[in-house]
């Protein structure tokens, strides 16, 4: 990780801007553009500050980058993008993707994505990624020239593979299972958390009504008046404090969301492994059947009932020359197939090896990140409790003076 891009370069997504433009269909549309700023770190040591390079990118360009990365590096758990539309939010937050709070959180999410890619040992070396950061014009064309889309596997093929793989790798099956479970548990967690936030918001805000009624009540009381009035003020403070608390909690939700999407990235690796395994099994099957045909032709026995067997019975035997030619073609194909199988085997082994290395890396990163997230969540809760104690202690002081 010593020479990864993140060490050589400071990367920030520093601004988000609403823009209006025309899309491919020439229809007016509004979108958000993000300003990416980069600065080389190396030259700092030479005493001169490197100039800041900056360029604008849209969310869809980030999507294209990620697509390219995940097709090009099938064995890598490619960092996910932040959500396109606000999801799992508590009612007070707007689900509108032009909402300034949402745009701001997405800006942070996109920056996080770039940093994750830049610090990934393999991804950070990618030329297209580098160009994404440095070269505003012509980048899209450059991506398309790589022809990565041709390598993208169709959904149908992937689906086929899932159901037909005969000897799935146990480790990948387990990992796939884990990804499914992780995705389901995090999405459940996020949903419940949003409801918890909603209810907590209610509890705090209803206390705000005490503020008003204490103040009104204080007007008719002689000795109790002052105490009530100031206690009411503390109730107002209490009710208002929940806004910041929940705003901060949203950051925690975003951290969890990243791993919700990571679960999908993990599953993508498993899927690619399945496809590879499927290809391998198909090739092996093809080879076996060819070998069988060859043997049948050579010995003249038909072991299995086949159309070929039927035709030969109906229309009589082929001439020996014809048979020889057929055997020759088959033998060539078998040799070719064996080589192919060999290379596929090799490729598969390589894939498993590098995929597993990246999965291990991912697991470490995940354990570390989530522990950090849990700690920061606990710290948030602690600060909320302390605020609560403070407000109620102040209120008690006022009540005691009544």
């Amino acid at each position: 990780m010593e020479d990864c891009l993140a060490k050589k370069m400071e990367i920030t997504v520093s601004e988000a801007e609403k823009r209006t433009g025309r899309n491919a269909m020439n229809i007016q549309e509004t979108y958000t553009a993000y300003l990416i700023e980069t600065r080389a770190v190396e030259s700092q040591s030479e005493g001169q500050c490197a100039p800041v390079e900056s360029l604008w990118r849209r969310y869809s360009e980030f999507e294209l980058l990620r697509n390219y990365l995940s097709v090009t590096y099938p064995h890598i758990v490619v960092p996910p993008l932040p959500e396109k539309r606000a999801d799992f939010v508590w009612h007070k937050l707007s689900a509108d993707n032009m909402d300034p709070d949402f745009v701001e959180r997405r800006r942070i999410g996109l920056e996080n994505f770039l940093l994750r890619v830049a610090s990934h040992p393999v991804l950070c070396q990618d030329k297209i990624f580098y160009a994404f950061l440095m070269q505003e014009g012509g980048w899209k064309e450059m991506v398309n020239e790589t022809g990565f889309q041709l390598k993208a596997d169709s959904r149908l093929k992937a689906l086929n593979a899932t159901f037909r793989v005969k000897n799935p790798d146990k480790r990948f099956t387990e990992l796939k299972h884990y990804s499914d479970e992780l995705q389901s548990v995090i999405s459940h967690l996020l949903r419940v958390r949003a409801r918890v936030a909603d209810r907590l918001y209610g509890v705090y805000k209803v206390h705000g009504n005490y503020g008003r009624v204490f103040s009104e009540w204080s007007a008719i009381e002689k000795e109790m008046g002052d105490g009530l009035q100031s206690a009411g003020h503390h109730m107002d403070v209490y009710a208002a404090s929940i806004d910041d608390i929940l705003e901060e909690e949203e950051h925690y939700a975003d951290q969890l969301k990243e791993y919700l999407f990571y679960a999908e990235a993990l599953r993508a690796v498993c899927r690619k492994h399945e496809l590879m395994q499927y290809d391998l099994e198909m090739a092996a099957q093809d080879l076996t059947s060819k070998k069988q045909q060859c043997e049948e032709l050579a010995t003249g026995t038909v072991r299995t009932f086949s159309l070929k067997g039927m035709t030969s019975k109906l229309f009589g035997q082929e001439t020996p020359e014809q048979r020889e030619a057929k055997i020759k073609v088959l033998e060539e194909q078998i040799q070719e197939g064996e080589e192919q199988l060999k290379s596929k085997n090799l490729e598969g082994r390589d894939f498993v090896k590098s995929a597993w290395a990246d999965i291990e890396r991912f697991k470490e990163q995940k354990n570390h990140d989530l522990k950090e997230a849990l700690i920061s969540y606990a710290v948030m809760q602690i600060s909320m409790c302390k605020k609560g104690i403070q407000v109620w202690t102040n209120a008690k002081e006022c009540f005691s003076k009544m």
Partner: protein
Amino acid sequence: MLEDFRVLPRCPGKGWPLEVLKQTNLDLSLPNGTPVDTSSPASSSSLLNRLQLDDDLDVETRDLFVTVDDPKKHVCTMETYITYRVTTKTTRAEFDLPEYSVRRRYQDFDWLRSKLEESQPTHLIPPLPEKFVVKGVVDRFSEEFVETRRKALDKFLKRITDHPVLSFNEHFNVFLTAKDLNAYKKQGMALLSKMGESVKYVTGGYKLRSRPLEFAAIGDYLDTFSLKLGTIDRIAQRIIKEQLEYLVELREYGPVYSTWGGLEGELSEPLEGVSACIGNCCTALEELSEDMTEDFLPVLREYILYAESMKNVLKKRDQVQAEYEAKLEAVALKREDRPKVPTDVEKCQDRVECFNADLKADMERWQNNKRQDFRQLLMGMADKNIQYYEKCLTAWESIIPLLQDKPETK
């Protein structure tokens, strides 16, 4: 003798210095149970009595202690009901024994209250907890409900006990001491209707010209007070409702971390920790809502009813004044014939003045009680919330080491 009591230490709560009580009682019983001061304490117009009343508040002299406890459920063929033990300890000469213990049910308390209202019309009678509960919402025989009601009944009797006039009421005495209250209830019917006579008013026909300013002010105060308390009651109920809904979500939230923990290796322990922590917060929240439901709301309700009682007394006062004014008017018309003011009009004037004096004293007492009660109530609410947050704080702080303990994987 009575002086001796004044130096008795005040017994907080239910405690009663039995030793002292026994001794003093022995001494007191010597002059055949007749107190030295024979001026009837039940006479509401006694100025002396009112002065004593004010002293009492400061010195906290007590010679009558009543507690309500030990609720019991009775299941009969006809009905099911709860009785409460009413224990009395006293050195008052009006009582034959120093100690009584009887069992009373809600309708007995209700009877007492209506008797007090009838025989002490010029006084503010403390409210009883509401008789009816919304069916289905609260189980009338649940432990929580019975306990809440017990507390309210206890408070009701304590408020009467603390009252310089009401505590000497004959019906109150009977309520505390009679073995068979029902017999007394029947027998008392005829007898008591006479006592009620003196407080019957001429209804209708006369309308009060104007409430004196100070009573108008009390009336206005009570209106606003009821209104504000009603709002507070609604807010408190709403908060409890929100808290319970929050609790429902929180109870689902914790276990999700556990489920997640089951999928993980290294993260398993931290996730389980968070789950347990949320569980602790749930327990703390449950306690908070329970305290609010059982301690906070009943006191609010009592005061809402109290304000209603006070408004009723105020109305009665207005009627008495109206009666007086009507009589005065009638006399004024006839003045030319008979120059002397008839004695019944003078009596009427006396009654208005007595009523006014009683009411003012009761209002003042009530204001004092209210201030203390609300200070206690609101401080209690603050305390309960502080405790809740402290419990949550401890829970969250305790899992921080668990989250940090594992060596960083690098």
